[in-house]
């Protein structure tokens, strides 16, 4: 539970902090401070609980499916890191209380900081690699928020994005690496993984896994070539930098390498990758640091360099090197945190961090200066300070790597030492000389408690530097033991080891560093130099921005190349896939062995010549002669209806015929709103070559599609009737159990009545949609005027209203017929409806016929007249039709039957004889209602547009249409 509280505490506190008011600076600090302090106390207590195996562990169920549990596990290494995180966290909180401006909305700051602390603790306390990755990514997220805290500044935004992009990508790699690890050993549990080092190192997947894990660690620890994000992360408030970039975030990477050291290290691959990256980083970082002008920039590069040093140690792979790495991690955290805070004080007090302007600060900040100088000395590896001891150990290991033959590593180590001394000198130089007058602010010593964290850390540097064995010794030992187990080597934490090669190297580094600094100042003009020699060309910021831009640009290009926003290519692709995919993956070659031809009928062929030619004609005319195309499509429709009739489907023929009629009227209603297309010949345009090519391509596709369709249907047709299919059931049961002899209708209203229910729902939906769409219909300007046919001086009926045409105009005689047809069509609709269950007909045909009857009246007398004489309310027809169908279906429930179960009521009446009233009949009535309602709603909604546009004010609708007659 205590372990859990370590992680939960900061997260809960983070939530609380977020909810505090903006001006609660003190409450926030107290909250954060108490959390860190109590965490420290808990952690200290837990040190005593590390049992014989040196581990405290606690498990919670999480994802048993993947063998994944939440495991909180503390051992020596984790303990050391937890102490660092919380200790420095506490100091940073205290520091931040004074650093942050009272105007800053601190709840956000402390909330993020606490969440970050929780994530970091989660990383070090994970006993499960997946869980570690979770917290790992959380540190990326929270650090993103912290770095971008001053998000009104572009550099903060850029820094945050850069840090997040790099570390989160690394995290993704780490995730895969960890998954591979888990795959190799069959568990994500840290214990299991650490115990399976041999299995892992000999596995085929070792190298890819190692690369992925290394990518995770190296990005996080800002190792070459991913180091560029760290300097830009300096845009964060200094407390954040002190926390993230000394003790925590960047240390997560090296922590991971330490954590997995027993399982992964000890192979040439490990050494090459880890040590290689470390060496490069160490040298580049240290060298670049010398040429920085920003205090924090210098510290950032020095951090990079020191992390490189730790990485090198880990890469070396010997137990002693590991000891040195752990030790230096601690040391670096202490002196670097104090230096960041000191830099923060300087920035805070003078208003600048530019070393080109900062001079002689010792005068006004003597106390801070002393602390900073001591910390810098630790960083430079001056004896009696903690940096010295771990650097010494580093030199010893460097010597061991190359043995007698190869001095490369040792030279690199000394170079790094030299550079380190040089940039440390560069840093402390700000305290010497004469203080300039043009500082933005006159500096004063900061408040007592703002200095306290620095003091404390510098004290640590001194204590560890002077009495390492007594101070850090036991803890270091515990940490190292938890990694190395039995294999802990002998090491001595003494300050003095006698005169040996490492000491010589230390001295060389100190002397060389001073010399280099002096030379650079004197000869090179270091103070004002604007670029870094050799490495200056590489600009991380620019590279990142360029990469992002290029990524986005090439993605845009690829999106255009691989995708489209236009409709035609999409349809083309669909058709091509329709043809290609079945051909490729089914390989239907066996089908081409066609059996003998079926029977042939010249008459039927003749009928289809009409259909086919009309279809081709429609395709030919559709662009410029819409009416011709429409008529030709009508021809196809007639042929199709007749074919249905010919091939024993009278119901289909009837329905298709009615749909044909209504579709024609419908499209004509719409055609009114499509302005004319003028043929290219009339416009004297010849189609371009590209257009012709496009047409040729489409033609090929269309021909192939037609061929494929013909072939598949031919093959399917010749395969003979399907046997054992379900249709026999319908034929034999329709009359006896379905109560109707028209099997198609029984299918529609009984066997598959739920289809029909859905189908009328579709009709209803479309009708409502059409109605809704047309309510906000805006005609094209060319379609707005009254048609030329109604405005000319030739036609006497031109100016007549519809009803005038009927009463006194040319429609007088036709109206007699058309009005007589209304009741007749009504009766025919009733006829089709009533007989539908037994003979061709049914609710659909009846509904369509009825609608046609009404539509004829609309065509004759116009919308206004019809609607003033007849209140149709198609909405109600639709709603009640649907309800009737549903309620009929639900009626069966009352008797314990499923929805839509039909029944037939039989009555025997005098004179009339036997009467059968199937419930399906009532269902069909619902169908009828919806069909009538939907058809009429669609058609009348379209028709209303004419009325609407005629009502438009004269300015928008010119009374005389000057345009060309449409057809």
């Amino acid at each position, binding site marked *: 539970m205590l372990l859990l509280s370590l992680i939960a505490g900061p997260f809960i506190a983070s939530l609380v902090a977020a909810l505090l008011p903006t001006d609660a600076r003190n409450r926030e600090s107290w909250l954060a401070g108490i959390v860190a302090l109590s965490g420290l106390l808990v952690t200290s207590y837990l040190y005593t609980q590390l049992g014989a195996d040196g581990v405290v562990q606690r498990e919670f169920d999480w994802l048993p499916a993947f063998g994944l549990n939440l495991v909180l596990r503390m051992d020596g290494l984790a303990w050391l890191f937890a102490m660092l995180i919380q200790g420095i966290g506490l100091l940073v909180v205290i520091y931040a209380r004074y650093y942050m401006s009272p105007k800053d909305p601190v709840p956000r700051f402390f909330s993020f900081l606490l969440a970050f602390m929780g994530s970091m603790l989660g990383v070090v306390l994970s006993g499960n690699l997946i869980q570690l990755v979770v917290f790992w990514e959380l540190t990326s997220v929270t650090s993103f928020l912290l770095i971008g805290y001053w998000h009104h500044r572009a550099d903060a935004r850029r820094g945050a994005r850069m840090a997040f992009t790099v570390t989160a990508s690394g995290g993704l790699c780490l995730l895969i690496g960890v998954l591979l690890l888990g795959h190799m050993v069959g568990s994500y549990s840290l214990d299991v993984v650490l115990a399976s080092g041999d299995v892992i190192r000999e596995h085929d997947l070792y190298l890819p896994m190692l690369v992925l894990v290394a990518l995770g660690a190296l990005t996080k620890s800002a190792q070459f070539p991913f180091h560029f994000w760290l300097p830009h992360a300096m845009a964060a408030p200094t407390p954040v930098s002190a926390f993230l970039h000394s003790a925590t975030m960047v240390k997560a990477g090296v922590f991971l390498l330490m954590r997995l050291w027993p399982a992964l290290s000890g192979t040439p691959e490990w050494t090459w990758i880890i040590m290689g990256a470390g060496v490069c980083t160490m040298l580049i970082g240290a060298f670049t640091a010398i040429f920085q002008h920003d205090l924090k920039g210098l510290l950032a590069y020095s951090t990079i360099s020191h992390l490189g040093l730790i990485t090198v140690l880990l890469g070396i792979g010997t137990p002693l090197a590991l000891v040195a790495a752990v030790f230096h991690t601690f040391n670096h955290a202490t002196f670097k945190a104090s230096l960041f805070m000191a830099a923060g004080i300087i920035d805070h007090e003078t208003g600048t961090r530019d070393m080109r302007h900062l001079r002689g600060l010792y005068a006004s900040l003597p106390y801070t200066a002393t602390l900073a100088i001591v910390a810098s000395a630790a960083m430079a590896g001056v004896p009696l300070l903690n940096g010295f001891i771990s650097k010494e150990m580093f030199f010893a290991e460097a010597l061991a790597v190359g043995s007698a033959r190869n001095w490369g590593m040792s030279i690199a180590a000394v170079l790094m030492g030299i550079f380190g001394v040089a940039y440390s000198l560069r840093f402390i130089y700000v305290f010497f000389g004469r203080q300039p007058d043009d500082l933005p602010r006159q500096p004063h010593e900061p408040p007592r408690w703002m200095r306290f964290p620095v003091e404390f850390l510098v004290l640590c540097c001194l204590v560890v530097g002077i009495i390492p064995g007594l101070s850090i010794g036991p803890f270091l030992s515990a940490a190292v033991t938890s990694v190395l187990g039995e294999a802990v080597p002998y090491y001595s934490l003494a300050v003095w080891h006698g005169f040996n090669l490492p000491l010589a190297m230390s001295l060389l580094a100190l002397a060389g560093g001073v010399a280099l600094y002096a030379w650079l100042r004197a000869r090179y003009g270091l103070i004002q130099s604007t670029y870094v020699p050799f490495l200056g060309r590489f600009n991380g910021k620019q590279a990142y921005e360029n990469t992002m831009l290029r990524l986005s640009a090439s993605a845009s290009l690829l999106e255009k190349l691989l995708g489209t926003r236009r409709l035609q290519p999409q349809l083309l692709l669909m058709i091509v896939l329709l043809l290609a995919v079945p051909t490729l993956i089914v390989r239907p070659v066996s089908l081409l062995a066609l059996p003998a031809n079926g029977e042939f009928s010249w008459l039927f062929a003749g009928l289809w010549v009409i259909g086919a030619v009309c279809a081709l004609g429609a395709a030919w005319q559709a662009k410029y002669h819409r009416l011709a195309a429409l008529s030709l499509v009508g021809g196809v429709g007639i042929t199709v209806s007749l074919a249905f009739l010919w091939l024993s489907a009278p119901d289909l023929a009837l329905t298709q015929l009615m749909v044909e009629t209504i579709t024609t009227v419908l499209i004509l209603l719409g055609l009114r709103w499509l302005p004319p297309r003028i043929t290219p010949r009339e416009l004297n345009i010849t189609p371009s070559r590209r257009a012709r090519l496009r047409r040729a391509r489409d033609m090929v596709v269309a021909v192939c599609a037609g061929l494929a369709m013909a072939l598949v249907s031919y093959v399917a047709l010749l395969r003979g009737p399907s046997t054992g299919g379900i249709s026999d059931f319908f034929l034999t049961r329709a009359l006896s159990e379905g109560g109707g002899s028209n099997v198609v209708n029984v299918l529609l209203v009984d066997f598959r009545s739920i289809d029909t229910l859905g189908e009328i729902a579709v009709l209803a939906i479309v009708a409502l949609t059409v109605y809704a769409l047309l309510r906000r219909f805006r005609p094209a300007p060319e379609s707005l005027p009254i048609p*030329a046919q109604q405005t*000319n001086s*030739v*036609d006497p009926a031109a100016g007549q209203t519809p009803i005038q045409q009927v009463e006194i105009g*040319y429609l007088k005689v036709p109206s007699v*017929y*058309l009005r*007589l047809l209304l009741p007749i069509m009504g009766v025919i609709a009733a006829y089709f409806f009533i007989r539908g269950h037994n003979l061709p007909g049914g609710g659909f045909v009846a509904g369509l016929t009825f609608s046609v009857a009404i539509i004829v009246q609309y065509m004759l007398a116009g919308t206004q007249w019809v609607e003033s004489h007849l209140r149709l309310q198609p909405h109600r027809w639709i709603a009640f039709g649907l309800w009737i169908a549903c309620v009929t279906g639900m009626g069966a429930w009352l008797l314990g039957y499923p929805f839509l179960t039909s029944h037939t009521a039989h009555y025997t009446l005098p004179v009339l004889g036997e009467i059968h009233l199937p419930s399906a009949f009532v269902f069909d009535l619902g169908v009828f209602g919806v069909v009538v309602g939907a058809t009429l709603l669609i058609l009348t909604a379209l028709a209303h547009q004419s009325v609407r546009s005629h009502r438009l004010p004269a300015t928008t609708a010119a009374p005389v249409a000057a345009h060309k*007659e449409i057809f």
Partner: protein
Amino acid sequence: MTPELDTLPVWVSLPVALLLLLGSTIVLIGALGLVKLPHFFQRIHGPAITITLGTGAILVASMIYFSALQSRLVIHEVLITAFIMLTAPVVAMLIMRTAVYRDLRARERGKAPPTDQNGKVGEVYPFSTKKSFSTKK
């Protein structure tokens, strides 16, 4: 082919066959007129024979045929006749009037309609310049 077709007595099958032949000939001639005649105002008269005599003959044939086949009076084909009587005139009137005013409008726009080339037009609608409207009256 349905077997009972050949069992029909000759006094039924002969008139049916003759009526069918007449009807189909007329239908064909009507359609031929639609294609062959040179301009619209003539073409419209072609289908008229299809609708009247062509359809009529086939309908009567159908009536006789089914009455004989089912040994009862089957005369529901009368309904088709009735419906055609109610719809064909409307269609003829409307198509004709459409054609007339389309031509007149085209003429108004200064675009000679195809009908004009023939010259065989009446004087009710002034398509022709040969005879004036008033002299005829």
